[in-house]
């Protein structure tokens, strides 16, 4: 019907305008160095062997962080979703927090604990009258960066694995459990079935680690993204900066090809979403061990950095001072993040449906398109947005906060599309087809059937988009309307002068807001289907 045509084509148009055209524009401009067409910018790529080293190091760093995240995230998700691990409800409430803590805080906390001249080590050395500080682990290396990045980003893997585990038909597991031990069931049935989720989670960690320069540079590890920054801030060569983003885009696309190849024509549909809350697996004598493991992870990814922030904050006065001086920024950020996350999820929902729609001819093209802005550096995207929107006719958009919503959408739609795609892969198409037999209204089918069926995925997508919007920095700075500010900007402007108390209080406020809204979404979802199929 026309309704569906209108909405889907509007969505595709919107997506292309918001996320694709600014990227295309930047590539187009990079083809005209010195106002004449040429590939000079691209020939200059990797002409310097130093850059190859940096690129490989960045790749290695990001892969290591992603690998480590899967290694700790998947067991963690499994423990809290399927077993009687002690304190699983607390763990479930806490695991998302590392995402809300700026990675910068993680690394500062670690330097405080393990860095050269750390006050902690000095204190220990003094207490036990050890002459020289203890020779502890050297965190100033690529491996150290990978571990810290993993600790700040592994919740992506947990969140997605958990979503997969919750929306999967547990009877598939139960069937296997009749014959095999839980561990074998996990490896042979559960993990393969939720692998689209795990893969998406790993991709997120990979992309974020790849672009994070704060953590490695504080640990004195030089990485590739800083080269792109240098093109901007030292050489003002946006063409070359765009060209240097190209390898990253190529890499993101090859991840997609890898994913498609791996998934092939496998089906991840769980035939019937019979979700009666089954009894958690009893861990028996491993219960304490598993509890210790989960607590260990939560301790180092949540309690440790937050504790550090609390110590830095010092007193309630700093928190109230931060609230007083930054209430405007807090309100703006919250308002924008709520609207952007909702808009992002709505748009991603339509796009993901199309990508999963076997009858839609452009689905492969669309799938690839959603991967392009995925790995486009925030700064280059911001410049692209300026060129694209800063005209007198589009002033209504560019001069207002709408440009920020557009910027967030451009940056984060790929993420929520990935989440929703994993979710749609699990939903049997016949459920939608059955609805097509009777209900004429497309919108009604969507509201009554599609949306409830993907509730888990939508919630996960919204949470991720919300947290990311709350913390966005690189693009925000370039397009924020003068006179406005966001919490993230405020934190980073204050950070330079070591206004540590305010920075720490603002970070705590940011964390609390994120925690509140994410819990509200999860809780609301549970309430809605309390008696129904998602009974956990």
């Amino acid at each position, binding site marked *: 019907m026309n309704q569906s045509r209108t909405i889907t084509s509007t969505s595709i148009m919107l997506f292309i305008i918001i996320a694709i055209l600014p990227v295309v524009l930047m590539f187009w401009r990079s083809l005209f160095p010195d106002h004449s067409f040429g590939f000079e910018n691209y020939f200059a790529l990797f002409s310097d062997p130093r850059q190859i080293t940096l690129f490989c190091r960045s790749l290695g760093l990001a892969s290591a962080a992603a690998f480590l995240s899967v290694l700790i995230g998947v067991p963690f998700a499994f423990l809290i979703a399927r077993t009687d691990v002690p304190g699983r409800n607390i763990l479930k409430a806490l695991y998302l927090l590392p995402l809300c803590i700026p990675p910068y805080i993680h690394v500062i906390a670690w330097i405080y604990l393990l860095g050269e001249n750390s006050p902690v080590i000095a204190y220990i050395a003094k207490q036990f009258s050890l002459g020289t500080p203890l020779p502890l682990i050297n965190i100033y290396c690529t491996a150290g960066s990978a571990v810290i990045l993993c600790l700040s980003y592994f919740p992506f893997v947990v969140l997605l694995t958990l979503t997969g585990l919750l929306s999967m038909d547990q009877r598939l597991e139960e069937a296997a459990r009749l014959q095999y031990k839980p561990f074998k069931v996990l490896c042979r049935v559960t993990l393969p079935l939720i692998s689209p989720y795990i893969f998406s989670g790993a991709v997120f960690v990979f992309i974020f680690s790849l672009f994070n320069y704060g953590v490695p540079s504080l640990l004195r590890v030089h990485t590739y993204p800083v080269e792109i920054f240098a093109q901007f801030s030292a050489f003002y060569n946006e063409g070359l900066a765009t060209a240097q983003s190209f390898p990253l885009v190529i890499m993101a696309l090859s991840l997609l090809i890898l994913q498609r190849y791996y998934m092939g024509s496998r089906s991840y549909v769980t035939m019937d979403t*019979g979700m009666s809350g089954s009894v958690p697996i009893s861990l028996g004598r491993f219960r304490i061990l598993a509890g210790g493991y989960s607590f260990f992870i939560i301790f180092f990814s949540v309690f440790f950095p937050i504790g550090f922030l609390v110590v830095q904050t010092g007193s309630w006065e700093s928190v109230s001072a931060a609230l007083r001086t930054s209430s405007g920024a807090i309100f703006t950020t919250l308002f924008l993040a709520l609207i952007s996350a909702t808009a992002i999820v709505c748009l991603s929902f339509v796009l993901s449906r199309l990508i999963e729609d076997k009858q839609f001819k452009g689905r492969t093209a669309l799938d690839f398109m959603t991967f392009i802005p995925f790995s486009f550096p925030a700064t280059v995207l911001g410049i692209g947005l300026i060129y694209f929107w800063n005209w007198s006719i589009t002033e209504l958009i560019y001069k207002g906060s709408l440009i920020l919503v557009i910027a967030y959408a451009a940056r984060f739609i790929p993420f929520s599309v990935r989440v929703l795609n994993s979710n749609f892969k699990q939903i049997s198409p016949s459920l939608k087809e059955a609805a097509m037999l009777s209900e004429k209204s497309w919108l009604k089918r969507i509201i009554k059937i599609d949306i409830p069926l993907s509730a888990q995925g939508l919630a996960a997508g919204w949470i991720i988009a919300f947290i990311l919007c709350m913390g966005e920095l690189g693009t925000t700075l370039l397009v924020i309307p003068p006179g406005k500010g966001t919490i993230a900007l405020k934190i980073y402007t204050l950070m330079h002068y070591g206004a540590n108390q305010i920075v720490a209080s603002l970070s705590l406020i940011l964390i609390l807001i994120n925690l509140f809204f994410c819990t509200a979404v999860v809780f609301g979802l549970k309430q809605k289907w309390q008696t129904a199929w998602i009974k956990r």
Partner: protein
Amino acid sequence: MANSMDKEMIKLKNVSIRIDKNRVLENISIQVKQGECFALLGPSGCGKTTLLRLIAGFERPQWGEIYINDRCVSSPVKEEPPYNRSLSMVFQDLALWPHMTAKENINFALGSGIKRKIKKQKIQEALKLVRLEEYINAYPHQLSGGEKQRLALARALVQEPKILLLDEPMSGLDSILRKELLEEIKEIISRMSITAIYVTHEVQEAIFMADRIGLMKKGGIDQIFTADAFAAIIKQEEEKPGKVIRLDRDNRYYFKTK
């Protein structure tokens, strides 16, 4: 004027489709009369389900035309959406919406534009028809296998369709339950004089349910028998194995020999 019983309810004219290597149908032409039950019998992967989905409108044929009640619903230039084909379907996986109770499942299948009071009455009737009145507020996962099957049937019948498509609806049920349900379905569709297409790979099911049976092999309908004639052939086969029909490995799939 032709007798109403002779009216062609479903007509496929030279329909072809190619989705991928495994899902190909070539040049299919069949006619099903009103009130008739037509079974499609064949091994898995021969295209039975695809054929059913073509009729339902979930797939679009590349060539040929499909008529329902003498109205062209699909041709290379025109395609009616599923909800405009006055048919309903019982899916292989039943496709009961897991987030809706029995009542809500049926209610949604009624579509929009009906008064609430009438809807309520129809839901009651449909549940009564399949003897599920007491499960009106149960979610699908709270029902047993047979009950789910009956709910799926009730959901399909509540729309009072002229045509009912059944895609191996009995898979996953034990044989006693299966027989019981088959009888129920048969009774209901003949009472309501519904035209039905029944897809299965079970010979006895096909013989029991259908007036005519289309034997399928990969990519098309091989031969059409009346149920009686086919039953006779099967009987003959059982007496003298291998002469007329060859059984495959697990004695279920039937192929005609040269």
